[in-house]
């Protein structure tokens, strides 16, 4: 019963995909103008094949991955420190509140041109853009994580002999981290978006740069191939996060 259901789902999925590709190819063959705008599935496949066969793509993927990882680590690290500080200090939290709200509301992609001016066309302008996005996701999770610590848990650890620093290290940080880990999909995804958008707005390497280059020569096949590679890459990244998550949150009831 279950097996045939699964089989039917997959059959329909593959049929739909093949139909879509066939319709795309037929539409592209109908006229040269159409082909100019939508490319063809076969040419896209040829571009992707060439990228991997020649190894050309690995350099660009590597750059995009490096930007993503740096943006995530630096943004999350900064957010952890500032989030802990503000969550544990009522005074500074009150002082910072309007600034945090203002910066968080600002559409931060608009900062990309400024970062390009400040940090040049290399990886750091993309990392900076990624940080501004990742920071707020992690910041609010850290803040929540600290605020959500149960008073009984705190009283218990205090009675067991913890001083203020030990409370931070043994209770607040693990609690904040558990919130950060459970939002890993979102924050890593956003670091990736920051990296690609940054590349697209001006760069010298990365998958976003490949798309940018192709667009300026109106080569739609390369643009679509780039999007395809990015999509698959994002899926792989998400899978890696899932694996990381289940090892980091072993103690959670829902991950066991």
């Amino acid at each position, binding site marked *: 019963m279950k097996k045939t259901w699964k089989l039917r789902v997959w059959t329909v999925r593959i049929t739909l995909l093949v139909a879509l590709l066939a319709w795309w190819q037929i539409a592209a063959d109908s006229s040269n103008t159409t082909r100019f705008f939508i490319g063809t599935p076969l040419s896209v496949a040829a571009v992707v094949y060439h990228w991997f066969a020649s190894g050309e793509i690995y350099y660009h993927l590597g750059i995009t991955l490096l930007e993503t990882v740096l943006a995530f680590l630096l943004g999350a690290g900064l957010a952890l420190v500032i989030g802990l500080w503000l969550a544990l200090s009522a005074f500074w939290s009150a002082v910072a509140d309007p600034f945090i709200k203002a910066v968080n509301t600002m559409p931060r992609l608009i900062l990309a041109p400024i970062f390009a001016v400040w940090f040049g066309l290399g990886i750091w302008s993309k990392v900076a853009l990624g940080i501004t996005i990742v920071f707020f996701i992690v910041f609010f999770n850290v803040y929540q994580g600290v605020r959500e610590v149960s008073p009984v848990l705190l009283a218990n650890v205090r*009675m067991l002999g*913890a001083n203020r620093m030990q409370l931070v290290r043994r209770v607040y940080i693990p609690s904040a981290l558990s919130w950060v880990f459970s939002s890993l999909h979102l924050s890593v995804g956003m670091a990736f978006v920051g990296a690609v958008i940054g590349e697209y707005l001006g760069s010298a390497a990365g998958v976003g740069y490949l798309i940018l280059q192709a667009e300026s020569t109106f080569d739609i096949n390369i643009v679509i191939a780039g999007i395809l590679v990015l999509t698959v890459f994002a899926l792989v990244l998400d899978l890696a996060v899932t694996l990381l998550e289940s090892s980091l949150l072993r103690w959670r009831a829902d991950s066991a």
Partner: protein
Amino acid sequence: MSSHPAIDLKGITCVFGTPGAGKQAYTAVRDASLTLGDGEFVSIVGPTGCGKSTLLNVAAGLLVPTRGNVSIFGAALAGVNRRAAYMFQVDALLPWLTARQNVSLGLELRGIGKKEAADRSESWLRRVGLASHGEKYPHQLSGGMKKRVALAQVLVIEPQILLMDEPFSALDIQTRQLMENELLEIWSAEKKSILFVTHDLEEAISLSDRVVVLSAGPATHPIAEFSIDLARPRDVTEIIHSERYIELHKLIWNELKEEVRKSYARSMGQAAA
């Protein structure tokens, strides 16, 4: 052995909330005095919400009373009570630590070496019957097992005083009686002083040397106390059938029921208003 009582509460008053700021100040405890002798097992009973936990928090040093003095073995208490361990009513284990790590936490916080901390927590895990469950996280343990870990967690630091706030109220009756017997065994072997808060009179009588009855809140204070002259060692499942137990139960319940009635009437009054 010290000649001073383990805990001496004198004229404790606890007022919550600042009056005048639109809120009404709430006096949880008024002029309450209570002593716990060295090596004694004392239970505090009273109607639900009467401020029993407030007194326990004062003895723990987690709550500074508005008025009154707290001395621990003759010395005035300042800050958290370092000679006491506290077992809470609700689950207070750290969810991200395994049972073993939870037990050794108190030793690590006190700067005790890794090797010694590991040995001592291992021996307590064994004592509460969880030697083979040390690597499990709290969510993988049953309610009774979690209570055992909590018991090991507080006892491993070898406190002289044990403060317990309805520690077994969430357990089913069989598990609860098992835990009560274990607690009595540990208490007589280790000679701790135990202050035990409960709303369950049967539990109070079967465990304690002395039962203190609190008045209904607000402005709770002790209104009566009874010496429990039942022979030890006791088995909590057997003792409730003895004649003396039934006598004591009647005697204390007479005192308690009026307070329970008042407390109930007050809560109904609040609900109606």
